[in-house]
């Protein structure tokens, strides 16, 4: 076991094994050479999410960090075309000048994985396709990639999509790029759809301890016509061995009562609209007599930024697991997790983030089985010292594996791009 652990742990690579192509042509030439000499390579952007997925060992690394820069930004056409290695921070700063944003809320794994806020690059966000709390309303990364350019496993430069939202010309390969963890194409260019920043942002907080009530409130809110764009529940923390109990510390805000659990519902839009919808929501949810607080714009933004950067788990050395399920199954699953793990619920009951101390592979597999049984899937986002290596970080079934293998072959016949990063044999 010890040797296996060692083999599968990322090891130090000397700088000669890393190549830094500075344009698409160089990426293509590099990969052509690797293809000819059968050399597997690891693709990297800024490395902010490098540890997500299975750990791989490749003779060479291709860093796309020098493919940096905004190629074209047309605010009135609602798109921005960037080189794949451009940092999300830079893109968002540029968009902000025109009061626009990447509406899917790029997730910030920096704090969790490297102890420092880091959204990574455009290519990295596409490769992982993990989106923030607004996902259930506006879609994820995959719904906002209009087109891309990249280099496949043979070194051929390919493209798909364009700069317009309505496009059915040929297969939608942009979707396939999203969540492929660099196993199909080395991305060189990405075009994102952009949208206006909301004028106003407010959050209704309901202090209630029962998970059933919380999920019922989230469901009612999301199913209402109030256009909810955030719906989370942080359960009151009973002590979980090995996990830091930190709701109060994480969400220290002037207008937020420190009273254990938090059910939070976000509304965004024009000022009048948000005010009107908050009133409607309080009426629809019938919470006027419950213990509620309201976060105004500034505090509301801080609150959701903390969620986007998974601050709840900051400095955790434990395993972090992401579970996606149909909302109707959330309560059942939460019962199984309560008191054993530290967790919170996002996307109105569709997403559970879980921290597990001293997780064993058996425990992990047993959680996975339950999740799959309830129609969902899970991903091991962060490994801990206790369980440094899990064979199947992602979830897949047999038929999908065969199809995925075929897709892989069509892009990367010699399996040289991030081999085994997602599944053994892909």
């Amino acid at each position, binding site marked *: 076991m010890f040797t296996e652990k060692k083999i599968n742990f990322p090891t130090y690579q000397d700088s000669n094994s890393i190549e830094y192509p500075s344009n698409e042509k160089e990426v293509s030439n590099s990969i052509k050479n690797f293809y000819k000499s059968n050399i597997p390579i690891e693709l990297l952007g800024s490395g902010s999410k490098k540890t997500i997925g299975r750990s791989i060992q490749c003779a060479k690394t291709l860093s796309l960090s020098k493919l940096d820069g905004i190629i074209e930004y047309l605010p009135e056409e609602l798109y921005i075309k960037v080189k794949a290695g451009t940092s999300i921070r830079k893109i968002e700063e540029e968009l902000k000048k025109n009061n626009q944003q990447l509406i899917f809320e790029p997730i910030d794994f920096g704090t969790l994985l490297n102890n420092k806020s880091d959204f990574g690059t455009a290519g990295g966000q596409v490769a992982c396709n993990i989106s923030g709390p607004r*996902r259930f309303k506006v879609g994820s990364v995959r719904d906002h990639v209009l087109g891309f350019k990249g280099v496949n496993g043979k070194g051929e430069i390919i493209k798909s999509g364009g700069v317009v*939202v*309505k496009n*059915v010309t*040929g297969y*939608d390969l942009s*979707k396939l790029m999203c969540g492929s963890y660099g196993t199909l194409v080395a991305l060189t260019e990405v075009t994102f759809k952009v949208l206006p920043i909301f004028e106003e942002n407010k959050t209704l907080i309901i202090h209630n301890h029962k998970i059933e009530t919380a999920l019922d409130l989230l469901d009612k809110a999301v199913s209402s016509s109030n256009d909810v764009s955030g719906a989370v529940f942080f359960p009151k923390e009973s002590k979980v061995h090995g996990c830091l109990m930190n709701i109060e510390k994480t969400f220290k805000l002037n207008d937020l009562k420190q009273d254990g659990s938090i059910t939070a519902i976000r509304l965004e839009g024009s000022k009048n609209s948000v005010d*009107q919808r908050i009133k409607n929501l309080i009426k629809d949810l019938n919470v006027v007599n419950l213990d509620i607080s309201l976060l105004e714009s500034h505090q509301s933004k801080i609150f959701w930024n903390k969620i986007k950067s998974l601050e709840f788990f900051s400095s955790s050395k434990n395993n972090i697991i992401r579970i996606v399920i149909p909302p109707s199954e959330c309560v059942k699953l939460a019962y199984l997790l309560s008191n054993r793990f530290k967790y919170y619920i996002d996307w109105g009951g569709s997403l559970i983030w879980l921290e597990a101390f001293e997780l064993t592979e058996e425990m992990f597999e047993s959680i996975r089985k339950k999740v799959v049984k309830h129609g969902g899937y899970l991903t091991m986002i962060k490994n801990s010292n206790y369980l440094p290596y899990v064979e199947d970080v992602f979830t897949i079934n047999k038929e999908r594996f065969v199809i995925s293998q075929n897709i892989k072959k069509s892009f990367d016949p010699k399996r040289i791009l991030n081999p085994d990063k997602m599944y053994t044999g892909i």
Partner: protein
Amino acid sequence: MPKIDRKLIAKKNKVVASLKKIIIAENVLDHEDQLRPFETDGLSAYKQKPLAVVFPENTEQVSRILAYCNDEKIKVVPRGAGTGLSGGSLPLEDGILLCLGKFNKIIDIDYRNRCVVAQPGVTNLSITKAVEEKDFYYAPDPSSQIACSIGGNVAENSGGVHSLKYGTTTNNLLGVEVVFMDGTISRLGGKTYDSEGYDLLGLITGSEGLLCVITEVTVKILKKAQAVKAALIGFPTIEDGGKCVSDIIASGIIPAGMEMMDKALIHATDNFVKAGYPRDADAMLIVELDGTEKEVEELIEKVSKICKKNNSSSIKISKSEKERLKFWAGRKAAFPACGDMSPDYYCMDGTIPRGKLVDVLKEIGRLSKKYNLPVANAFHAGDGNLHPLIMYDANQKDSLEKTEKFGADILKYCVKVGGVLTGEHGVGVEKRELMCEMFNNNDIQQQIKIKKYLDVSSLLNPGKVYPILRKCAEEGRVHVHREKNKFPNIPRF
């Protein structure tokens, strides 16, 4: 189309007999007269009777039919409601037409997970009808929604008039059950958001029946907005209208729908449904705004201001839901209204960056003179999707050929200004030869390779989407535009 397998056609009786062993005999049609209704889809300029038509009743039967055809190397063309406008379900002389018309039930209405599970033959509109009692709806609304099937919507990634704000089919789809050519049944997605691993759901959405047959669909449903109003705005020139569209978006407003029509179509549709359109205007916008009551009022005021700044000649706001639907009725009847003006019309479907609208409309005007064919323009202005309707008379010699050339020139121009060949109708047979305007050889070969791995013998809807050259594109020879073209003189067919 791909080379016709004459030997197979000679074996027709045997094939039909085998199919009748897989499904009940009455669900297999093979007589000439029975085949005629299936010889075309929404692109009626092309006609071809299939070898036979099959109506499977469940997924298991679809799987067995495909496995049989795969073993016997028989081509299969899947068909939903047959309303497609690009010839995507045009039959093949040596192929089976697999109709999903019997898959017509809604399986599950799941309000808790905000989704509907339906068989692929269910019409788009009946999904909304099934959930409107609780004020929910299914967002993508192609104009053919009364007839088109949800399975066909997935295959074509259909859009509609609300795509800018609410997305197209791909953004509103949670899961599908599909059958691959070898008979493998697979579930992609489910009732969760996204799925892990490769986004196969995203890949098959809009794959035009080339990769698999869809046997079940799970779509997201949304709660209706508290208030919705539409504004009809007339403009003295197309330029003013086009500029207004850009200004509305640039001001940070994302309307639920924003449609534009030119003078020819304003008159045609107003004659057709008496929608109260501004007949004196050269261009008309329908802008739909939704949200809370106050928000809609606010937005209407903002939009009105922008319109006035752009010289609008009239603004009419819907006063009731009935009136709002009437505003839309004209737009949704644009195609049939065009049919009233001319014996035949040919509908194009390019998407362009919104800012290029005036440019493109001017070019269409120039081409209209050049080809001496009148044209009416409908435009999903919000998302840049343009539908020029070229009017012609199929009885006149060479007129279809001339019309197709005209259409191709429009699409080439769309690509030239940064747009794409098709926004929602699909490539089908109609635009496949134009694919090289947008993609180079590498791009096309990559897409063909995906098909080759999922449908090894290329039996599922072959001859659609990808260009066919002598010896066929699958063998690696595709006409290449702009880049060095090795065989410029090879005739294309």
